[in-house]
């Protein structure tokens, strides 16, 4: 299943955030959207997941305009995890993860064998099997985020979109979450699209980076090819020196305002 945008213009009221965006998300790859605060990367992600209506243009999922498709059918092909979502804190891990099966269920078919197997799989994949009966209030930030990812996994979609999934997490959990996403991409060929703040982590985990600046796509491609000192300077408005990461051989940016502190 391919997802792409054609001449997409997005905004709120009269205010245009992004204009004439044409991007194609590469299949079975990890794509990371980067840009400074308020550049519209989250808006773009939400629109691709049909959460926001564009002012003009289309999002094409498969061969259809996403707004022409029944929402439940989309939910079987594309999952979205919004930024820091909220749920009643006395729900158990299992209670929440099983909601991912919603698009496959009906009021008289609430828990098929398939639902059970897939929720078990999602819990196992995210390392939550042992704490499935714990309440959300008892979990750490990293565990909570894994619960949400497990819920999107239970949707069994080829495409997963995530809006800042590492926000407010300690560095340990940031890496844990991104490792999990990379793993899902490599082991199960899922197409993953992430909005991420941290350019260095983006370079490490992305197969494809889309950099957004002034309502347009500034550059897109393999981070090793497109991430340059000029790109960092233009997109993030900060000076940078780029070196090769000694561990992952990906670009690493050392950013600075002035050379004297």
């Amino acid at each position, binding site marked *: 299943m391919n997802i792409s945008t054609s001449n997409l213009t997005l905004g709120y009221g009269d205010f245009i955030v992004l204009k004439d965006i044409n991007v194609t998300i590469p299949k079975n790859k990890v794509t990371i959207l980067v840009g400074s605060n308020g550049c519209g990367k989250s808006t773009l992600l*939400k629109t691709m*997941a*049909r*959460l926001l209506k564009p002012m003009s243009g289309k999002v094409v999922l498969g061969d259809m305009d996403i707004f022409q498709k*029944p*929402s*439940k*059918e*989309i*939910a*079987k092909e594309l*999952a*979205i*995890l*919004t930024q820091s*979502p*909220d*749920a*009643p804190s*006395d*729900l*158990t891990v299992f*209670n929440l993860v*099983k*909601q*991912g099966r*919603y*698009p496959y*269920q009906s*009021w*008289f*078919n*609430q*828990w*098929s*064998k398939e*639902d*059970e197997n897939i929720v078990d799989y999602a819990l196992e994949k995210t390392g939550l099997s042992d704490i499935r*009966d714990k*309440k959300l209030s008892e979990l750490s930030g990293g565990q909570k985020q894994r619960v949400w990812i497990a819920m*999107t996994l239970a*949707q069994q979609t080829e495409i997963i979109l995530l809006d800042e999934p590492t926000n407010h997490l300690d560095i340990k959990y940031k890496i844990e979450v991104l490792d999990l996403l990379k793993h899902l991409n490599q082991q199960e060929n899922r197409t993953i699209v992430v909005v991420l703040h941290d350019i260095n982590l983006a370079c490490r985990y992305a197969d494809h980076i889309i950099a957004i600046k002034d309502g347009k796509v500034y550059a897109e491609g393999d981070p090793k090819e497109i991430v340059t000192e000029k790109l960092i300077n233009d997109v993030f408005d900060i000076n940078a020196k780029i070196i090769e990461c000694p561990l992952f051989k990906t670009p690493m940016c050392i950013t600075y305002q002035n050379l004297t502190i």
Partner: protein
Amino acid sequence: MKSLFVARKGRLSFLYEKRSTLVVAISMLICIFSILLSLSMGQKYISIFKVIQILFDGSIGGDSLIVNTIRLPRTLVALFVGASLGLSGAILQGVVKNPLAAPNIIGITDSGSVGALIFLTLFTDPKNNALTTSIFYMPVFAFAGAFAAVLIVYLLAYKKGVTPYRLIMIGIAVAGAAKAITSILIINGPVVFIKEAQLWITGTIYGTNWTHVKLLLPWFLVLFVLTLIYTRELNIQNLDDGISVGLGSSVEKNRFLLMILSAALASGAVAVGGGISFVGLIAPHISRKLTNSSFGNVLPLSAVVGGIIVVISDIAARTMLFPLDLPVGIFTAGIGAPFFVYLLLKSQRALRRGF
């Protein structure tokens, strides 16, 4: 999975939490006991065994008359008024994602009062202090008032869809306006109806009979079944809107339908029982504390708990200051509010202990 119970047959499949199902079963037993207690207590004490005998044998006699024509209909009205309010509150709390929501907060109760007072204003004959039409039409007016409130709230809150926040804010405004109208009607109304009006606003099921049961019971049952069908949607509504849409739910449509369900339940209860307060707020709370926020548990339990609260409050209302028959609304607030505080304190303590 030891904690879960799965029922599957062909394309039908359901999932229950064992512990929560047990809680529902126990609360139903308590509910039955409170009904029997309500039938046995009053001006003349009839033992519970005798009550059971009368219910099943249908024996004729003085006690049978008291139970069957006076106490049973009133108890059933209490039960279904409470169940409707509990269920209505549970739905509303899910829709607006706020555990402090209740039917009276978004103006259902106050607008029901306006309806009832309009009825009293129109049909009281001040010359001979009597109604010019049957008091049985009052529920119709109350119902219309309550239901109109919800539609007004929804329409005013609508702006490319409805957000829970706007629903609450506009609901509070509509409730305030309804209170003002109530005051105007009471101040300008004939003296005789002030007592009647005040009773109604406090909430009373004094003098209810089988006609009220026949009105309320089918209304409640139909809405209860519809609510159970919508349990899944309510679980989804309780999550962030972005997540709900992502899961493929028609969030706006379901929000509207669930609000209508909640309003219809509360309107039915208000029409028969007046402005009985607190039940719609605390019944869902107690239910959540006893199980968890999953609406598969909260919905049936809220109905049962709401029923228990009003039945027991009505026992107190009839017997505590006998021969005075007080409005039941005094006791739902009187019993409900302290219990609510107790629950909050208890859960805070549990939290501090780290459970």
